């Protein structure tokens, strides 16, 4: 353990000289890494520990399931809207920034979209509840009047605009930057020679994109979507501010009686809860944690696979 003697150090590889400072420093760095492992284990453990009493309480497992199901439904529905809106937009923006915009302005344009990620969610929520929702009211009225035969627009349409549709659109805006950033990254790596070959064969720009860039970026797009989904599922404040919640499970996107989402429900109910209610909220948080965890892991796996395929192709 003592400082190595000169003859020994000669035989050691470069940078591997044994030194007390080295040992201490490497252990400090490793300890910091271990803190992350412990924290994550702690998140799971403490949530299980505090959430478990709900399952043994009077209403038991079925009671908890009937509590969490409408919330889960709301979470999935709003996230689905967000994905349906945000994914095509993000692909469009990423194509614009990497394939259409002149190189000189591409970077500032990309930065503009990144700026959207810097806006705190509570501010976007305020805007969504106050501005976007209000201005969407005529759209909802029109949908309710003319398309009410579609279950999604069954109505009666909300007078405040604080609907599931608005919540989904706000979520779409919030996940747009991350999905765009990831798509941009893959599209930028599309093989230049293949792109030029396609154009040389007489393809229009769109035909080139369809035959070269989009197939190349497919796994990247999928993983970007999944990571965006993870973000949308857990987003709290924007939904808490935008969505007016009083209803149960419904597919009506333009009404004022909506199911809440898991995250928003915790934020709204927690400050006033005591006793077993707190445990129940923590248990719903655990459900959310597990779902986002799985979505993120699948997303990362696709990224890794995609990386290998991309490198080979």
């Amino acid at each position, binding site marked *: 353990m003592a400082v190595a003697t000169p003859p020994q150090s000669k035989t050691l590889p*470069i*940078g591997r*000289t044994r*030194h007390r400072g080295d040992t201490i*420093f*490497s252990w*400090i*760095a*490793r300890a*910091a*890494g271990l*803190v*992350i492992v412990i924290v994550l284990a702690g998140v799971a453990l403490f949530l299980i*520990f505090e959430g478990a009493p709900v399952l043994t309480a009077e209403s038991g497992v079925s009671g908890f399931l009937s509590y969490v199901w409408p919330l889960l439904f709301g979470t999935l529905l709003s996230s689905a809207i967000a994905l349906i809106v945000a994914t*095509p937009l993000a*692909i469009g*923006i990423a194509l*614009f920034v990497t394939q*259409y915009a002149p190189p000189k302005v591409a970077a500032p344009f990309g930065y*503009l*979209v990144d*700026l*959207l990620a*810097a*806006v*705190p969610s*509570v*501010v976007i*929520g*305020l*805007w969504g509840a106050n*501005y*976007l929702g209000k*201005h*969407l009211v*005529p*759209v909802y009225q029109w949908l309710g009047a003319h398309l009410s035969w579609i279950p999604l627009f069954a109505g009666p349409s909300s007078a405040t605009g604080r609907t599931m549709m608005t919540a989904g659109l706000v979520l779409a805006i919030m996940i747009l930057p991350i999905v*765009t950033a990831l798509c941009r990254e893959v599209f930028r790596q599309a093989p230049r020679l293949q792109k030029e070959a396609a154009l040389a064969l*007489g393809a*229009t*720009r*769109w035909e080139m*994109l369809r035959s070269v860039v989009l197939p190349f970026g497919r796994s990247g797009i999928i993983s970007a979507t999944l990571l965006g989904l*993870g*973000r949308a599922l857990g987003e*709290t*404040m924007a939904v808490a*501010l935008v969505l007016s919640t009083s209803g149960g499970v419904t597919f009506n996107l333009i009404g004022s009686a909506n199911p809440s989402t898991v*995250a928003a429900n*915790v*934020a709204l109910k927690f400050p006033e809860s005591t006793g077993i209610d*707190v445990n129940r909220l*923590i248990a719903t*948080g655990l459900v*959310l944690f597990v779902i986002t*965890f799985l*979505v*993120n*892991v699948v997303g*990362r796996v696709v990224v890794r696979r995609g990386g290998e395929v991309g490198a080979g192709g």
Partner: protein
Amino acid sequence: MSADVLELERPRGDALARALQGGQMSRTAVWGVVAFTLAVGIVLTFPVLHIGPVAAVLVTAPIVIVGTWAVSRAVEGARRATDRLVTMLVMTSFALAVAPLVSVLWTVVQNGLARFDTQFFTSDMRGVIGEGGGALHAIMGTLLITSATAVISVPIGILTAIYLVEYGRGALARWITMLVDVMTGIPSIVAGLFAFALFRIFFGPAIRFGIGGAVALSVMMIPIVVRTTEEMLRIVPNDLREASYALGVPKWRTVVQVVLPAAASGISAGVIVAVARIIGETAPLLIIAGATTNLNFNLFSGRMATLPVFTFSSYAQPGFPPEAAKDRAWAAALTLMLLVMILNLVARLIARLLAPKTA
């Protein structure tokens, strides 16, 4: 560029022949068509249908896109028309992303200025009912909790990144990399619940204090710091490390005195961006730091107001009259936006000004 290439090719089939012989719309012609359809859309939406700006965009954009596509199809053929259609869609999607950004900034500035005055920054909400009052307590709380978060997260984050880049081989490093990815995806509300569940065990169910908020926010900030630091350490050229080893400098001093200084500007910029990212987090603080009307400088005892929570609760539970509280909410939102913007600007300046001079 594609047009030049096309003209060199011999026409094969109808579509191509048409593309070459049937004429191609000049730039002016395309813009003319776009301007015309745009005018049609605007005339239709405002004077005829009488609808608001958001609905107007929803009506006008399809008219312009479909109109231009139809003209292009008639003049230039299907392939060119599809190409123009996609170009327009791509540009529209970019515009659609920028529109909310501009709208958010505009709405916040417009509504926030009403109460963006000295009283707002010099008084708290103690005993205030209705008009007046300020956010001094919330601003102080945000500064204290954010600083505490940075104090916890920065050392852990940077050291973890050092471990991953300079030492990490084998299973533990792979696990940590994976877990950092997972941690990035933890919903903010779950981080808040975690901090609450943790401190509840020691302090009982009514526990609300600032440091708990800092712990919750650290769960969110650490992975960001790890990621950016890792990136910065990886681009430090290996030559520097080898030169240092060759001079007989031990590894740890190489890391501390050679590698870290080389990456310092990037790391500090990354840390500031991470601070900007978590300074607006609301949900965890709502749970573990709580809300209060009083100024509280003690992180370890008592509820602590923060700007995002203040924004939320002023808006969600405005009391009476609601206008005064809503004005305060917007002013707090504006303050928060300014803080975030300033932090991002500082980060860019640091990254640019302090960057190591390369060859």
